[in-house]
């Protein structure tokens, strides 16, 4: 547990030191939302209908930059190898980084909501539920994202490989997150929100469990 907290503290500190990069990633996500809104046109009904999908697409695209960035610092001077040789449990390092990435993606998702509201005229009064969806959706993205970012960080084509590997794996998470967010924005007369959020939670738990089991094999020789 101590190793996990030490790893988390290290990753949060690294993120804080690289906060200029985080602002750039937010700007990238906001720009993606803006461009998607141009594709729909000025029809406010259509904009509202597609808002949830575009919010999560924006977050997904921005997440690949953020996740890849989180391993740049580990690879520059083989710092991750240095920790593994201390020795530190690979699982503690994985969960430390995944939690830090989760916090970052959640923050990014929350920051993109006002952009979505302005561009798509798609708000909701159920803010706590929306935060819950972003929290669970980010968890479902950050766990496999951290694993694949570790895997691809050692390859030359990492910027291409990460989305190629990650996107197919997170389709269920993305689907559930989009549906749950959409129900919050457009209304939920059939009471479908709970099943979708449950599905989101199930996939998050699955990804976090598998990630912890596999990370050691990914980073060790």
């Amino acid at each position, binding site marked *: 547990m101590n190793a996990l907290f030490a790893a988390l503290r290290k990753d949060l500190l690294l993120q804080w030191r690289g906060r200029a990069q985080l602002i750039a990633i937010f700007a990238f996500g906001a720009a993606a939302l803006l461009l998607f809104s141009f594709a729909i046109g000025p029809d406010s009904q259509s904009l509202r209908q597609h808002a949830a999908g575009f919010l999560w697409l924006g977050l997904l695209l921005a997440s690949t930059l953020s996740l890849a960035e989180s391993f740049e610092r580990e690879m520059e*001077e*083989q710092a991750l190898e240095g920790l593994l040789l201390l020795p530190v449990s690979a699982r503690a390092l994985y969960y430390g980084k995944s939690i830090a990435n989760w916090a970052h993606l959640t923050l990014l998702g929350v920051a993109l909501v006002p952009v979505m509201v302005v561009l798509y005229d798609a708000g909701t009064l159920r803010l706590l539920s929306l935060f819950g969806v972003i929290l669970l959706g980010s968890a479902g993205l950050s766990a496999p994202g951290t694993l694949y970012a570790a895997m691809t960080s050692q390859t030359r084509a990492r910027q291409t490989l990460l989305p190629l590997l990650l996107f197919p794996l997170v389709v269920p998470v993305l689907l559930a997150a989009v549906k749950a967010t959409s129900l919050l924005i457009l209304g939920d007369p059939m009471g479908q929100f709970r099943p979708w959020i449950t599905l989101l939670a199930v996939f998050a738990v699955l990804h976090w469990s598998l990630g912890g089991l596999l990370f050691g094999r990914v980073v060790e020789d």
Partner: protein
Amino acid sequence: MIAVAAAGICRRYGRRWALIDVSFDIPEGSLAMVTGRNGSGKSTLLRVLATAIRADRGSVAILGHDARAERDTVRERTALLGHRTHLYEPLTALENLALVARFLGGDGRRSALLARLEEVGLADRGDDVVQTFSAGMRQRLALARVLQQQPRLILLDEPYGHLDPPGFLLVDGLLQTLRKQGSTVLMATHLVNRGRRICDLGLVLEAGRLVFAGATAEMPEPAGVDATTPFAEGA
């Protein structure tokens, strides 16, 4: 006790063999050096001994523990200074050392960490981020990081790399201190004569094969290295 017992180590990268049937023993408390031309397998050997990479064949025992079966035990007793420094560049020198202390449960107080930096001549740069350091300062900090681990076996890959003349003396002094403390050191170096003056045992690698293992006084010149040149002298 034998600190390093290597038996028939082979390691390849793709189709190229970097180490071929390398066997040797290093008694505990020794200062040993390994030398050889670029690409002869020195770094690979140190990385295999540090368990950073696995040998494809053969076995390694560190302080009586099998490197494959008891990897974590070996890692607790071993520290590696590699070509890459294992440092986090956005963190300060003190934060890098504190990280190691936090993971190992060592003394992470600022005063203790500053004392460690003092040993490598960086006490006045403790609060500066590593990104602002020169290559030589990074090498010094990497040495401090290795010492912070308080290992029984220290593997140093080109410890004199990037250092200025006072830095050379600093490494010499650290090696002597480690010897007095009973630690075992194996360093890879091209500075043959300097190594000879300090080390008891020498290994010479040629194209992945061990061609000499014995007292440094009897060590032959590695192929292509003239001991009379400043390169070999390392002064």
